[in-house]
């Protein structure tokens, strides 16, 4: 069950030329289908118009022929026959109308569905290209709503909104035309009430727009309040503020009731009013038409048909309000959709990317300054370049704390294994975010094999850089799918080999369905240690030259699994350039060198023993993080 209550609905105009033009662009590929559907709609409307006309023919020719032709002998039998034929024609017209309407609605649905699928694919494709900073500031739930519910609101516009209005208008014009053609004087008698209808409808439309807006915003307010109150219920209870919260809720509730009653009153007035005016039209017809017949200018059949047309004439008007609401919701949704599509791609591939050939796996950070905030300017903490380059001691401004990395430089040889350790907030994860180009640094450069990563194609770079994250993300699908991640270049044998290297094979093969075991709900049922092993296997299966590991001391892992993970790590690091963000001393054993990050700077580096001997930051970290785990 999906509930949308988190944001006040954008309630703008029901028609926005800019948005509509953009939306039409998505319908264009289906022009032929849309044209066919419209043609069918016109035919169906015509079929609807046939009923009263056939009644007229029936009455005037067979049932109650005008006075001059009465008195014919033996007319009755011919009349019966004629009537039966007429009924058969009527039946055929009805059947045709039924088919046309059905086909039309199906075709429009098909167009709507395909447009939605196109739009959704485009949104997903665009989202995939956005940088991680976008995902850091945008809740996943909101993106899901954009791609699912908002696109759905557009479908209603395409299938039941726009086309139906077209059909309604055509029906009204058709009725007017037929009536004028049958008897223009009678038609004008009916049309006499039209100005009143338009005034009433217009007033209703305006009121209903305001009422709809009021109901929607007030309901959104109630729901937002309710949602927040449920989340913070304990606070309200602890502060014994239930009565006050209830009073506030009553206020919102009453405001919504008032708006709902306003809308109801409006509707309650509109329908009977339109009905009354319809009756007024019929009365006019009767009075004026009766006179016309008496004068021999019109026939009874024409009068009856005109009465039937007049009754139908007012039906489309009633739908207008509903259509209006659909339009309004669709405009709001498309505005939100386009906002996603217009989100700029900030981490871009270069126009002429350098090719990576004979990849060795060297890594270098060259004076890298980095902040997550987009608006953090390098000037905040760094003096200008001509001032002799950034100095560590340069006067920190108030924005200084926002820097995750402040002038980090280091080089890692191909095949070298390095651990990065540091206290909370030292900038360890940022190092990984920059190597994989999840983000770009504000200043300085990250180089692989001597090439700035910004000069490479992202996909090319990431093919060579493997990543093992601390919170393992498993996709729905089988274990093999999760190791392969949909890469067709990775064979079943590769999957197994990777699993064996990391030691994951043991538990996977113990499962009844082995590699074909389907994982549900992000791998529920697997222990966190097993998930870690899958993550290692996933990274190894892609044969990366550079491996980045975020290694977390998971307290919930038993000693046996812990040993397994350690072995997997050892296997993973072998023979490639590797950076391990280490939280465990045991991890540090596998590396050639340790870099100690502190407050965004490389503070110390060396081997475990050398660093311990320094009795600096590393020694403190060792006491804090590793002491009781080892």
């Amino acid at each position, binding site marked *: 069950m999906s509930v949308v209550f988190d944001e006040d609905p954008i309630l703008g105009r029901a028609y926005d030329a800019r948005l509509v033009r953009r939306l039409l662009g998505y319908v264009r590929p289906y022009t032929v289908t849309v044209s066919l559907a419209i043609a069918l709609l016109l035919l169906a409307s015509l079929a609807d118009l046939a009923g009263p006309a056939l009644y007229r023919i029936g009455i005037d020719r067979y049932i109650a022929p005008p006075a001059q032709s009465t008195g014919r002998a033996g007319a009755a039998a011919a009349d019966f026959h004629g009537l039966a034929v007429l009924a058969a024609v009527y039946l055929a017209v009805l059947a045709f109308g039924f088919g046309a309407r059905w086909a039309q609605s199906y075709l429009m649905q098909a167009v709507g569905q395909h447009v939605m699928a196109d739009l959704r694919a485009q949104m997903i494709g665009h989202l995939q290209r956005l940088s991680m900073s976008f995902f850091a500031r945008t809740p996943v739930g909101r993106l899901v709503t954009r791609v699912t519910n908002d696109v759905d609101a557009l479908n209603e516009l395409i299938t039941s909104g726009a086309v139906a209005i077209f059909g309604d208008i055509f029906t009204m014009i058709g009725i007017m035309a037929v009536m004028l053609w049958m008897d223009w004087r009678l038609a004008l008698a009916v049309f006499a009430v039209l100005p009143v209808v338009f005034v009433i409808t217009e007033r209703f439309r305006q009121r209903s727009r305001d009422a709809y807006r009021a109901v929607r915003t007030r309901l959104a307010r109630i*729901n937002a309040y309710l949602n927040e109150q449920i989340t913070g219920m304990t606070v309200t209870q602890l502060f014994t503020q239930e009565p006050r919260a209830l009073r506030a809720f009553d206020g919102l509730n009453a405001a919504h009731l008032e708006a709902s009653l306003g809308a109801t009153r409006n509707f309650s007035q509109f329908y009977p009013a339109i009905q009354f005016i319809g009756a*007024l039209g019929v009365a006019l017809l*009767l009075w004026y038409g009766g006179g016309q017949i008496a004068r021999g200018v019109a026939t009874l059949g024409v009068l009856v048909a005109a009465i039937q047309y007049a009754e139908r004439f007012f039906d489309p008007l009633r739908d207008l309000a509903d259509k209006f609401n659909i339009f309004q919701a669709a405009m709001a949704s498309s505005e939100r959709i386009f906002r996603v599509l217009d989100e700029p791609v900030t981490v871009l591939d270069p126009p002429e990317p350098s090719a990576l050939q004979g990849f060795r796996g060297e890594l270098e950070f060259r004076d890298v300054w980095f902040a997550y905030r987009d608006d953090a300017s390098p000037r905040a903490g760094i003096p200008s370049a001509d001032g002799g380059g950034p100095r560590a001691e340069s006067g920190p401004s108030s924005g200084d704390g926002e820097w995750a990395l402040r002038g980090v430089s280091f080089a890692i040889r191909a095949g070298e294994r390095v651990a990065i350790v540091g206290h*909370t907030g030292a900038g360890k994860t940022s190092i990984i975010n920059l190597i994989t180009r999840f983000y770009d640094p504000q200043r300085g450069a990250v180089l692989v094999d001597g090439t700035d990563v910004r000069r490479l194609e992202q996909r090319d770079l990431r093919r060579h850089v493997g990543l093992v994250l601390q919170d393992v993300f498993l996709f729905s699908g089988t274990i093999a799918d999760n190791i392969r991640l949909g890469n067709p270049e990775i064979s079943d044998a590769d999957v197994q080999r990777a699993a064996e290297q990391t030691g994951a094979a043991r538990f996977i093969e113990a499962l009844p369905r082995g590699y074909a075991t389907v994982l549900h709900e992000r791998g529920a049922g697997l222990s966190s240690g097993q998930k870690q092993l899958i993550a290692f296997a996933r990274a190894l299966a892609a044969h990366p030259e550079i491996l980045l590991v975020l290694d977390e001391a998971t307290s919930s892992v038993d000693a046996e699994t812990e040993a397994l993970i350690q072995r997997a790590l050892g296997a993973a690091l072998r023979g490639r350039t590797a950076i391990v963000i280490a939280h465990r001393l045991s991890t540090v054993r596998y590396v050639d060198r340790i870099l100690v990050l502190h407050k965004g700077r490389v503070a110390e580096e060396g081997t475990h023993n050398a660093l311990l001997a320094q009795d600096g930051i590393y020694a403190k970290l060792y006491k804090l993080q590793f002491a009781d785990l080892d």
Partner: protein
Amino acid sequence: MRSRRFWAYIRCYRRAYFIGYAGGLVSIAMAQSSPWVLRLAVDAIRHHAGAGPLAAYAAALVALAAAEAAASYVMRWSILGAAYRVETDLRREYFAHLQRMGLAFFERTPTGDLMARAVNDIRAVQRFAGVGLMRSVHTTVMLVASVAFMLSISVRLTLWMLAILPFVTLVFLLLGREIHRRFDAVQTQFSALSARVQEMMSGIRVVKAFAREPDQLARFRDASAEVVHANLRLARAQGALWPAIGLIVGVASVVLLWQGGGAVIRGTLTLGELVQFTYYLARLSFPMIALGWVTNLWQQGRASMIRLDEIFAQPPAVADPAAPLAAGGIRGEITFRRVSVVFDGKMALRDVSLVMPAGRTVAVVGPTGAGKTTLVSLIPRIFDPTEGQVLVDGHDVRQLPLAALRSAVAVVPQEPFLFSDTLYENIGFGSPDARPAAREMVLAAAAISQIAVDAADFPLGYDTVVGERGVTLSGGQRQRATLARAVMRDPRILILDDALSSVDTQTEQAILEGLRGVMAARTSIVIAHRISTIRAADWIVVLDGGRLVDQGTHDDLIGRGGLYADLYERELVREALEADETTFADAAGGAAPQTDGDDKQDGPGR
């Protein structure tokens, strides 16, 4: 609809329903009379009546239509209006009921589920109470009356109609059921699509890292194609519904022309009667559709009311005692007597006994998962112990009036929660009897908690809206705002549950300085890591794995060299690491990283 609650609400508005139904009956009577006038008019025309009678008939038609419109307005307005009042009452009761639910209820019931009931189910009940109840009566009477009038004109034609029109209801129900089934399939596919988007967006880091975008896009397209397929299946059924009903009514109309016309030729029926009959056909068609529609509304309304009644059936977890003790002035002595707490089969606290004397400051320390928060949550009865007793001034907390107990206790929780309201309202949130908090008191509380400095920088000062739909505060700012809220309450017992963890060291010192005056006069319980905070306490309680492992003064505990000494040692190292340079955690506001003990600020994008 068997819900007693539902009918009780309807009974509250029985006058409105009565008036509405009366209006409905009048409107039906008028609606049934106008075809009769029309018939007289048509026959009059055929027999060349003069202009006089015609004008009279026309006037009669207008009069009838006016009366019908007025009565129909009365019906809609009173019944639909009453339904909105029922909705409002129901929503109020729902909220009031939630307010009585305990923490355990909210932990086992997802907010999304509670919201779905509040949004979708209440609306479904409203629709049944309004359109459903209105149409059910209106439709039935209309049906009976139309058939009766038809019979009075021609039994033969009526039988024809009765042979054809029930197909409308039948199609509506049968096709409706099929549509419903296919709609469910659409919903299932749609949920699968949502789940896929959710997964793709949550796992975007992995997707990007392994350059798997094309594969993910392909999987998405598959899910999207399934949605299209399910929708088109639905469209085939749904697209047929109204045309099919139109077709059936049309067939009835054809039969009328054919059989009725024949009867006019034979002279057994007048043309006026035929015209009159066509009107009853129209007046019979809509009720036939409405029958199916009302059935749907009834089914949905009933299912929704059942879901709402499920919530109403939940008893309040923490209830006032049947015979509460008179709550005199609470002094604030707290005693835990052999207290154990079990959550989901796990012991959160085991057999804890201890006394916190009135007016003292007690620090509670221990590693993560030691049961510190559980211990303090028992005092204001956020939940009750599984075994043992918690006493305040010698009275079991379960014997005290809940409101009196909670008024005496103020908690600053670990995860600060602010409402989407002004900073001023948030601080004054707990002020007694809901009158606007005295400005000086709010300002004083803000000064003590050091949020006053930040408030000066907010765009609208204290009138700045904070919380989910307002300005985003940093963790430290939120903690200080919630602290101000607690101080403002002037409690006898003040509980700080790791409440200054996101506040930088200097600010913490300033806060503790300010709090000293406040805490002097009352019992304070402080869960903390920072040495400065812990050392300022009169008494220290050490928990580990749900057990009370030690208690005493700082010097006692250090002297004994147990868990406390270890924790102390590690904290010293941590503070040394952090003190290496000035922390900007709290001062920079908004997005500044916070030193709250884990790796969060290392990468917001993880």
